[in-house]
């Protein structure tokens, strides 16, 4: 059986006055039915573009995206409508992604009516209540007739998740969906999304800048670390985060917060990066894009050849890394 989602050497460029901007290049990955892939990276790494392409909102400039084995750029009419129902996107900002003049009930009822998923009013109300229960907004009757401004950020984000669930999607793209909510709320949102994955079998593309959140969410799935448009490390999350091989992933892991002040102060200062700032995407360094910041930089090769993702030799799993220096060690 084909995977649910497959990216094959996907590339996206945008024209600009300085020449084409390569937002993502040669991005390949698969997400199984009910699987989780976390995409992690800093600003400008292409993670949001990756999500938009997966949602069919942006076309790849090159390469193909397969959904259930079919090329999504060929979808038209009823096929496209079916695809749109099976794939849902949850945005970062629940303040702007909900219509401010619609009540929670109206927001959730609209797609149910549009796609004729309920037969009558009684069933509609019943379904809306059920959705609110699924996202832990209990008792549901307290929320039905509230407007977004009457809800907290965490509650709004739950409504956004409930809206995504109205159409029973197989695949949810969550783009920084928990990064705007407070810490005490964040974990309950993450746990709720994980429950959707485990109980309803919804597959997730989970996009975040925060490796610790990615690691938590995709512990049973895979993680792709992106840097300036390319995947630099890819594989099962425990391996990518515990046995990180790429110098960039290692630097990200080293920058993770630790909830112990003693450890935080004694933390090894290795994996030091040259410059703390990501270069501009308008001016991506030649060869390996990470080479100007890399502690393992080798002149003559790293600044010339673009490294390819290759399997870690000793590892039998699918752990891949794009760094010849690490691979030949």
């Amino acid at each position, binding site marked *: 059986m084909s995977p649910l989602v497959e990216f094959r050497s996907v590339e996206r460029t945008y024209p600009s006055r300085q020449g084409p901007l390569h937002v993502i290049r040669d991005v390949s990955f698969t997400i199984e039915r009910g699987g989780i892939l976390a995409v992690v990276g800093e600003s400008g790494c292409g993670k949001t573009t990756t999500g938009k392409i997966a949602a069919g909102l942006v076309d790849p400039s090159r390469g193909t995206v397969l959904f259930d084995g079919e090329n999504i750029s060929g979808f038209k009419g009823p096929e496209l409508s079916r695809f749109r129902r099976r794939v849902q996107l949850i945005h970062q900002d629940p303040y702007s992604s909900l219509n401010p003049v619609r009540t929670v009930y109206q927001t959730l009822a609209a797609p149910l009516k549009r796609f004729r998923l309920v037969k009558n009013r009684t069933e509609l109300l019943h379904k809306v209540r059920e959705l609110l229960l699924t996202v832990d907004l209990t008792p549901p009757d307290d929320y039905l007739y509230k407007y977004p401004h009457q809800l907290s950020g965490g509650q709004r984000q739950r409504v956004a998740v409930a809206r995504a669930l109205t159409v029973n999607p197989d695949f949810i793209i969550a783009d920084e969906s928990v990064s705007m909510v407070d810490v*005490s709320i964040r*974990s309950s949102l993450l746990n709720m999304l994980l429950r959707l994955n485990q109980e309803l079998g919804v597959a997730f593309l989970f996009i975040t800048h925060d490796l610790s959140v990615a690691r938590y969410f995709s512990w049973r799935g895979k993680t792709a670390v992106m840097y300036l448009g390319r995947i630099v490390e890819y594989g099962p999350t425990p391996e990518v985060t515990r046995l990180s091989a790429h110098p960039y992933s290692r630097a990200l892991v080293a920058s993770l917060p*630790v*909830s112990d*002040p003693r450890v*935080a102060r004694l933390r090894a200062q290795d994996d030091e990066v040259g410059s*703390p*700032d990501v270069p501009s995407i308008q001016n991506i360094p030649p060869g390996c894009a990470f080479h100007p910041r890399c502690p393992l930089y080798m002149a003559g090769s790293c600044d010339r050849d673009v490294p390819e993702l290759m399997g870690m030799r000793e590892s039998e799993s699918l752990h891949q890394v794009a760094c010849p220096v690490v691979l030949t060690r």
Partner: protein
Amino acid sequence: MSIRSDSAPPASVDGATLMSVRDLSVVYRVGNRLVRALSNVSFDVMPGRALALIGESGSGKSTLGSALTRLLPRTAEITSGSITFNGKEGRVQLLDLSSEELRRFRWRDCAVVSQMAMNAFNPVMTIQDHFEDTAAAHGLRDKAKIHDKAYELMETVHLDAKRVLPSYPHQLSGGMRQRVLIALSLLLSPELVILDEPTTALDALSQRAIIKLLRRLRQQLGLTMIFISHDLSLAAELADDVATMYAGQIVEYTDVFSLFDKPKHPYSVGLIGAIPDLSADGASLVSIPGSPPDLVSLPSGCRFHPRCPLSDDKCERELPLLVETEPGQKVACFHWKDAQTLKGSDAFEGRNS
């Protein structure tokens, strides 16, 4: 509104503190509603130490930060309390200063590094101009001297002065702008620096660089710092003392090691458990049910009680005061002795509000 005056009066301020806040309350008037952003907050800042004010949105941490330098917006009103600054220039009561005295106090005695590194700059002025402008506002007009000082400060924060000083703010990355702001805050050698969310908008590796820089500055210059952040892990990295804020109050005040070893307020226990970290391999994170209260209609009694697994009738009726449990450690909870029982990811479950 009721103002309790149970905290120590300003007269009891110990001579060793750099800043003392007593019984500080701030409200915002929005239409005919009263938003109680800060309620009877008291704490001390010791010279050379770093205090972290940690809280979620609506906890009052930013209001407190602005109140400390009297930078509150017009809609805010300080309804009670005092702020005493005990610096080189002698003791001053901040709430009694005229606007001219305040203008001189800010930056010279106490500098603020504001949250939005981009908004803090004038977009049509170069970084060099910002240094000259700030110096001129405090009566320093010797351009050569300011230039030398700016150069030196750029080196302190690891920036290439030749490149950065003639640049405009938009030509710099977020991490560089944050470092420029830190350099600029040090221009008049203040005794206290207040940093509002110093790492929040930055990428992971830039965050790390800023944390390292701030740690080094503390060692080199012996600066006293106050960090305001939603991020408890920033406190773990940088702070000596931590004030945990909830719904406009300090609910726990302690040194950073005791906080992480043995948090005494149920809210602190939950917050620490909610940080996903390296050791938590796929383990469940603590999630605190419910959400922070609306500051217009605060819950009765302890403001955390609707979300707290330890709450009982007393918590619903009475507001717990911040009391000392051990020297240097204070907590506002009737059940602090039982807070340790809340460790583990499911301790907060089975409660809905």
